[in-house]
């Protein structure tokens, strides 16, 4: 188990290097450099050249790359061209917002999706199953942002029960109970919008997993042992059916971290997705670049997380 995890971690390392090199070159391909935004036509060319030299912009690419990586480890992700502030400052609070939104959504997805999937598979072809399956078809057909808009209109404007923009009410003391409640209140609509559409995949996967597991020989053997329905489902069917879902957890979480762009936009929720759209709109490449790096990093970490979870839940994966 530990060996597997360590090996898996080691594989992650070259992946990260490759990712960072790619992002670095993408960054250098973009028009302009760190000085372009600061240049004033009145500054003499020699002065600019001297600045370039001092900033290391004339160094060979591998030195520049090294400096860039070292700077990142020191928390320096560069300067936002648009905001004229360090990128880290720009991303900082947004990052937390997105993490909150994703974690909330994932919890809702599993809390609602897993029971629905299990029930739907367990009572295959019943009325309940038809309703659930019908819902999943609808969910597949509906784009998240459309659903988000509808939810926003109904609960935000029509009934007015939830806030329609932002991540927290104005004028609240950070850390106070009211502040936290307000945060949660702001999260409810966007996270449900994401989750209610996002969970249909989980439901369908689980449903077919349960149906498949029901016909396995080991389930027959369990029945032949006299195992009761309840434990038959709990110990033999659900556990086997849930493995792919558990293994998908890492991807799911990461997918949400990167994939909530449209919902953040619909709810004017100040998260990373909204920032990403913004940075592209304003051609703030230094921010966009860091976000791409960040999303890439998350994907790698998500895969890592999934593999480790899989090795915990499925003994067949644990390599000797």
């Amino acid at each position, binding site marked *: 188990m530990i*060996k597997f995890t*360590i*090996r898996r971690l*080691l594989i992650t390392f070259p992946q990260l290097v490759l990712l960072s090199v790619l992002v670095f070159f993408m960054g250098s391909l973009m028009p302009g450099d760190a000085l372009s935004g600061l240049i004033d036509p009145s500054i003499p060319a020699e002065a600019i050249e001297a600045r370039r030299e001092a900033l290391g912009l004339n160094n060979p690419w591998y030195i520049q790359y090294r400096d860039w990586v070292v700077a990142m480890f020191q928390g320096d992700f560069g300067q936002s061209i648009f905001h004229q502030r360090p990128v880290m400052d720009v991303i900082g609070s947004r990052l937390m917002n997105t993490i909150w939104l994703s974690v909330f959504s994932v919890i809702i997805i599993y809390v609602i999706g897993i029971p629905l999937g299990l029930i739907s598979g367990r009572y295959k072809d019943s009325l309940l199953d038809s309703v659930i399956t019908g819902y999943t078809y609808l969910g597949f057909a509906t784009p998240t942002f459309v659903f988000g808009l509808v939810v926003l209109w109904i609960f935000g404007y029509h009934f007015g029960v939830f806030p329609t923009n932002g991540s927290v009410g104005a004028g609240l003391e950070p850390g106070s109970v009211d502040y936290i409640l307000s945060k949660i209140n702001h999260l409810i609509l966007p996270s449900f919008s994401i989750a209610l559409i996002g969970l249909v995949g989980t439901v369908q996967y689980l449903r077919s997993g349960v149906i498949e597991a029901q016909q396995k020989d080991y389930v027959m053997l369990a029945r032949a042992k006299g195992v009761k329905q309840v434990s038959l489902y709990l110990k033999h069917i659900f556990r086997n059916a849930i493995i792919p879902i558990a293994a998908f957890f890492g991807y799911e979480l990461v997918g949400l971290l990167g994939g909530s762009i449209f919902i953040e936009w619909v709810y004017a929720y100040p998260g990373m997705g909204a920032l990403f759209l913004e940075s592209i709109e304003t051609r703030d490449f230094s921010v966009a670049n860091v976000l791409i790096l960040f999303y890439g990093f998350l994907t790698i970490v998500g895969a890592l997380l999934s593999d480790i979870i899989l090795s915990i839940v499925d003994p067949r994966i644990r*390599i000797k």
Partner: protein
Amino acid sequence: MSNEFLEIKDLKIHFPIKGGFFNTVKDHVKAVDGVNISIPKGTTYGLVGESGSGKTTTGKAVMGLNDITEGEIFFRGEKLSGKGKKVGVNRDIQMIFQDPYSSLNVRKRVFDIIAEPLKNYESHSKNELIEEVLKLLERVGLPPGSLYKFPHEFSGGQRQRIGVARAIALNPKLIIADEPVSALDVSVQAQVLNFMQEIQQDMDLTMLFIAHDLGVVRHMCQHIGIMYHGRLVEEGTAEEIFNNPQHIYTKRLIAAIPDTNVEKVESNLKLRQQIKEEYDQHFAEYLDDEGRAFPLQAISDTHKVALPVKG
């Protein structure tokens, strides 16, 4: 140069095992580890062994489906193999697979399945192809109406016939039959066995018949080789193997076959018990330090056994 139709010389096929921290090649599975087989023209050679013995790997190597680590394969006196790679695909060597359910592409019609090798090697007009395929269907005893049906519309035995029709489409000279009847019911098995014999006589085929069912092998083959752990432990005519087995492994294998002769059940069980005891006591002596059989020694013109080498 040799007079044998198919000659496998000192064939070794080793698969790497990856493992350890960096997933490097730790060791090799010696799936086939020094096998010599020669098959005279027009005869059937039965290659018998339990799962994992390397019999299928050997067959696939002749078909060019496995990399060869060492050794040579001669077909009609010509060398097929190159060290470290697969032998070239030869249109005169064809294979019949174990499971007629999974070896046929379920999305293709019978016509396309059987015509595929013809298309690969020969140029025919569509009409000529249909003509050819109809002839093949006739030959394997399927009605012409099968032409545009899908594999799932046939029974197991019929599917195996489709597999055979595809295998003989190019008029091959050598057939590798890998467990051709082990997925079939007894009555269907009889059908396919009869029919393979017919085809063999009609087309003067040479056959490498890979199977684990000794009864079937005895029925079909003139020569039999018994494989254990990548090597042959005994080789001889069907008569020699069944009536005068010398290697303890062969003895045990033969004693393990359940016999339908109810009068002999008691004595068979006793014999099996006796041989099992002998096997438990002495099997280790029949193996070298690596747990593999010793080189074969001839005990008659046709009969070879991997007897222990003393010292």
